[in-house]
């Protein structure tokens, strides 16, 4: 027995190597490079010179940083609030085995196949206040300055993000729902529970881990939304949708200040790690609790 176990462990350890090599090469080493760069001064062209804490002082003292953090968390929270209920409901719907539902599931999936840039360009064109959908069809309620007013622009960003990612999360929930044993619903039906009661007392509690997985993906993923926002609003109007990721890009590649941009990158990584840890604690602390029937 003992030899079998150790042989197994040995082979497992070996399997980690490729992933580890990639992780070190494409995440750890560049990350260290960014940390070093955050203590330097570089305009992207000339020589890199050491600058101590100058960049950090500039970034932490800039009122743009709390604003970018606020925008990031606002978009994160709003897109979670919109996506989670929508995804669960659509997931429940397409978990049924009826044929028309399978067909609808395929249609729902389409947005996920489009690139973020294509989605952004499409929405930008549709929402144009002069040449867009509203003026074209003479629908006055659609004739808004959608991307030109701060709060509206944030709303449009959240909507476009949700439109793109709800299909993916619906798929995750569909899988989770299909794993719930039928017998639980049968027992509930015998006890006289209706559809709604079954949803809140069986489906939702059983989906706990799916919710955590999906939420982690949404929240951590929203930190790095870049392409969609960049094409849609370029962080505007003014800086209303300038999230951390955009702030970093604009500082680095429009302003050519690689030092401060690297500081923002480090902050972004730290925020991401902290959030991932918190979510993991939320889900993982009660490891003994079973989801399965009869527990």
């Amino acid at each position, binding site marked *: 027995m003992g030899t079998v176990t150790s042989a197994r462990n040995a082979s497992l350890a070996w399997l980690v190597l490729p992933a580890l090599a990639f992780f070190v090469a494409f995440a750890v080493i560049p990350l260290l490079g960014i940390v070093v760069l955050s203590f330097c001064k570089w305009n992207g062209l*000339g020589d890199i010179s050491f600058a101590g804490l100058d960049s950090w002082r500039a970034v932490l003292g800039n009122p743009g940083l709390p604003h970018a953090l606020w925008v990031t968390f606002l978009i994160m929270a709003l897109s979670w609030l919109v996506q989670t209920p929508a995804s669960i409901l659509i997931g429940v719907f397409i978990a049924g085995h009826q044929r028309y539902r399978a067909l609808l599931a395929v249609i729902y999936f389409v947005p996920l196949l489009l690139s973020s840039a294509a989605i952004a360009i499409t929405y930008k064109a549709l929402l144009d206040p*002069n040449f867009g959908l509203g003026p074209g069809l003479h629908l006055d309620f659609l004739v808004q300055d959608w991307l*030109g007013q701060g709060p509206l622009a944030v709303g449009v960003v959240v909507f476009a993000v949700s439109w793109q990612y709800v299909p993916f999360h619906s798929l995750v929930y569909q899988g989770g729902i299909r794993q719930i044993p039928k017998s639980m619903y049968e027992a509930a039906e015998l006890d006289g529970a209706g559809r709604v009661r079954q949803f809140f007392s069986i489906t939702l509690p059983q989906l706990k881990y799916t919710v955590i997985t999906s939420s*982690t993906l949404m929240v951590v993923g929203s930190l790095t939304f870049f392409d969609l926002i960049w094409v849609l609003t370029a962080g505007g109007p*003014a*800086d209303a949708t300038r999230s951390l990721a955009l702030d970093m890009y604009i500082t680095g590649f429009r302003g050519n200040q690689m030092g401060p941009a690297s500081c923002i*990158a480090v902050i*972004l990584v730290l925020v*991401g790690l902290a959030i991932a840890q918190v979510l993991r604690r939320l889900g993982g602390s009660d490891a003994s609790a079973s989801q399965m029937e009869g527990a």
Partner: protein
Amino acid sequence: MDPRTTSRRSFIGLAAGLPVAGAALAACGGSSGPSGSASSAGAGGSAPAAGAGATYWTLSGPPGEAVRKATVARFDKANPDSSVKITVFQNDDYKAKIKTAIGAGQAPTLIWGWGGGGLREYVKANQVEDLTSWFDQNADVKKRLFPSSFGAATIDNKIYAMPCETVQPIVLYYNKKVFDKVGVQPPQSWGEIMALVPKFNAAGIAPFSLGGQSRWTNMMWLEFLFDRIAGPEIFQSVLDGQKDAWSAPGSIQGLTELQKLVKANGFVKGFSSITADSNADQALLYTGRAAMMLHGSWSYGIQKAQGGKFVAEGSLGYMNFPPVEGGKGDPSDTVGNPGQYIAISSKATDGQKTAAKAFFAKGLLDDAEIKDWIGTGGVPIINGTDSQLASAGADAPFLQFVYGVASKAKVFAQSWDQALPGSAAETLLDNIAKLFQLSITPQQFASNMNAIIGQ
């Protein structure tokens, strides 16, 4: 049991963090983003080591793209030994891409740009060739061009770029049909502009079109207001690093007047989400949804190409920016691009540099290119084209107008964002966007901008 749990946990922790770190780095290491795509675009042509072929990055979009490509094609055909490979990019993308590529050692041989502050950064980083002696040896090349075009190519008394293409002052365009419909006359002063605004709004027509998301479009307004109110001195004092230059009374007055225009709904609804790259701002003018527009002289060619009969039937009006009542600036002054500029990368091979210089001497602004530019409604930076401009058919009046503005201007100021170094230009554009959004006051604008003077 214990150690195993810990290691598994920390591994999961790492895995959870991975997507963030990876994506963050992909975006910020940034060289992997823009330069990756840039170099792949360049690779379609030839890598720096690929021998005699010079690579050339420039702007896409009508009408310039076709002219640039035709010029390169003619040169390649006539000089099979020293070819030039052209790659085109959208304006706003190009500005970020070219800097990243140069910083990453992936620069094309021929670096197209606007001269001024951007060129100065390349020079400071030893990324571009000093062309002074080449121009001395090829005096004929230099003599053909407008002397004023060399200002933005000259850094510390040395020439680092070949001026090319057209002179592009910023022009106040207006739609004559809309003016007739509302029954008003083109404005002769700032006060008349402000008086026209409510009249057009009452008629359901936006007074001014503006592609505000591109931000440099907003900047042109300030360039003119500052000049007409106080002359070119305020921005010159900014360039000279004078303390609190943005707080000068003329500066505050210009910023205040601009916000008055925004508050009076002077600009088209949704201007802050319109990009100039899509030409939607110009479409608003030629479709009659906006009455006026401040834009570069290159816009004439775009409106001619895309506006149907609008330009051909003479509905497009144009004028220099009118004076401001009581202002000190000379009404003949203009702003814009005194030319476009091509520098040679110092990292290119000798073969590529030779090909590039041959392109300067024999390819750029040959007779066919001059004719092409005039055909698009542009005025090439070549001396003595007056007669050619006069015989340019329907475009002759506009071409002569541009030639007149450019040659009679007491001061032809370079665009602010091109004159300033990159980081200051970004802060400027950022604050201008906020000013137009009314999210900061003129005083806040001045103090934000004063904070980076001389940095």
